[in-house]
């Protein structure tokens, strides 16, 4: 077993999940089964292979430039509301579970 009950509890905390006792048992079984299969990747020697995070970095990027200059194709002029207007206040709040009309409301964060 690679993943322990303790790992499940720790990762759930990182992911902002609680999980019931039943869910934790199932999660432990499933994660171990899936990670057991994923372990086959260890058979590959990737010491000299570059990691690939994105497909699009292979297209349009100007390889002769460094840093953000390489991705000029994806840039635009830095102007206020350059692409579209921001959402109106009431529209942005329309889907809020709780709001006072100006702000999103959540349970109290700081006790005093």
């Amino acid at each position, binding site marked *: 077993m690679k993943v322990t009950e303790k790992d499940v509890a720790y990762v759930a905390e990182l*992911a902002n*999940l609680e999980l019931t006792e039943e869910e934790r048992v199932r999660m432990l079984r499933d994660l171990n089964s899936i990670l057991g299969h994923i372990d086959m990747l260890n058979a590959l020697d990737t010491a000299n292979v570059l990691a690939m995070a994105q497909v699009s970095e292979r297209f349009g990027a100007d390889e002769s430039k460094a840093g953000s200059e390489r991705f000029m194709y994806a840039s*635009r002029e830095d102007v206020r509301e350059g692409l579209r207007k921001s959402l109106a206040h009431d529209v942005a709040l329309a889907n809020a579970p709780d709001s006072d009309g100006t702000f999103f409301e959540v349970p109290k964060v700081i006790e005093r």
Partner: protein
Amino acid sequence: MDLGSLTIDGVRSAIQERKVTAASFAEAHYAKIASDDPQIGAYLALSKDRAMGKAAEIDALAAKGDQLPPLAGVPVGIKDVMVTRGVTTTAGSKILGNYLPPYDCTAVARLEAAGAVVLGKLNCDEFAMGSSNENSAWKPVRNPRDLSRVPGGSSGGAAAAVAANMAVATLGSDTGGSIRQPASFCGVVGLKPTYGRVSRYGLIAFASSLDHIGPFGRNVKDTALVLQTMAGRDAMDSTSADIPVPDYVAEMGKPVKGLKIGIAKEYLGEGLDGEVRAATEAAVQKLARLGCEIVEVSLPHTKYAVPAYYIVATAEASSNLARFDGVRYGFRAAGVRSLSEMYRRSRDQGFGAEVKRRIMLGTYALSAGYYDAYYLKAQKVRTLLTRDFEEAFKSVDAIVTPTSPTAAFKLGEKVDDPLAMYLADIYTVTANLAGIPGISVPCGETRDKLPIGMQILGRHFDEAMILRVAGAFEKAA
């Protein structure tokens, strides 16, 4: 009206010639949905006001004698992971059960600008995570060919709607096969374009470096026409490519004689159903008879694709789905005393089992001590898989494989074994990791009359080639 025989050009020209109105095409589809969808479950929401408004606009253009746009009056459905202004968009999840988006997905907006009539939103696996549509928080979708079987996933509703004549074309999303596999299970055509060909703006993110939007149709040409209207640079998606969009229908008209078609033994090995193998081999023979040269290629890292995929996809998902916290939109759990409890309870109650499983797996892979062993390793394997394709495409124009190792399976058959479900994606995840385009076209049936799909893969931004091969195959079938 025989809805099953409708094509995009057929609908547009019937409206242009004023034989049928766009309104009556839409009404006929709504009647079909009302009578048949209770058995199938393809639609989650109908957008009738919006559809009839668009149809009236098209009918007014036709009445004036104006030249109609390419998708004029074509009744389409949209997978529920693409946002639609004012039309409930849930991504198949309870956590977005009451979400009314304030804007439109670019792909949807472009379809409507080309005249399409959006009938409604289509069922899918929750956040597009699944291969059978059984992970929808609302209801499963049933395969129109056999109601005891799944339509595939995650775009199960989008495939079933076309197969059951409840839309002429639909939009799906494909992160690991979610367009191509359901297309093969339902006997329709489904196309996943190159990464960056179609804007992802307004697509609710599952795994941003693997997500694609693409069309379903009853024939290859219809998928080409829908792709044509969606493709091209969008300033709202910085990963959308500024590369010219060819005329796909014109490209489809070119002959296939002399093209080199690759077949890879790695896609014809263990786990492949005998009937699917036979159908794929027969399809390759047909291409040979059309004058294509069949060439064996090797894609040696294929067996590592599913494990690499399920690390990259879940890692990205764990990050993307962090935004669902019950603060700004979506579901919030009741009776909570603190902010952190609100986050946890809202997510616990709002997400389904498969989504939680993937968030956990992705979070684990990104957590301290495991990042190098899992996430970085998977990204390196992604490079190797991409190189496999680049090497193969030096000697062939397209590669033909089965779309899925089996035809449609029964509802409930794999629901308790996530790994078995993941392995059903074995032939499709590679194209997402490499970002190359792929299309699934029907290539036969099993003895039980279940559709079988063939996948054609192409070079980056060479949708024209796979459409050409698929079109020629379809014509000869």
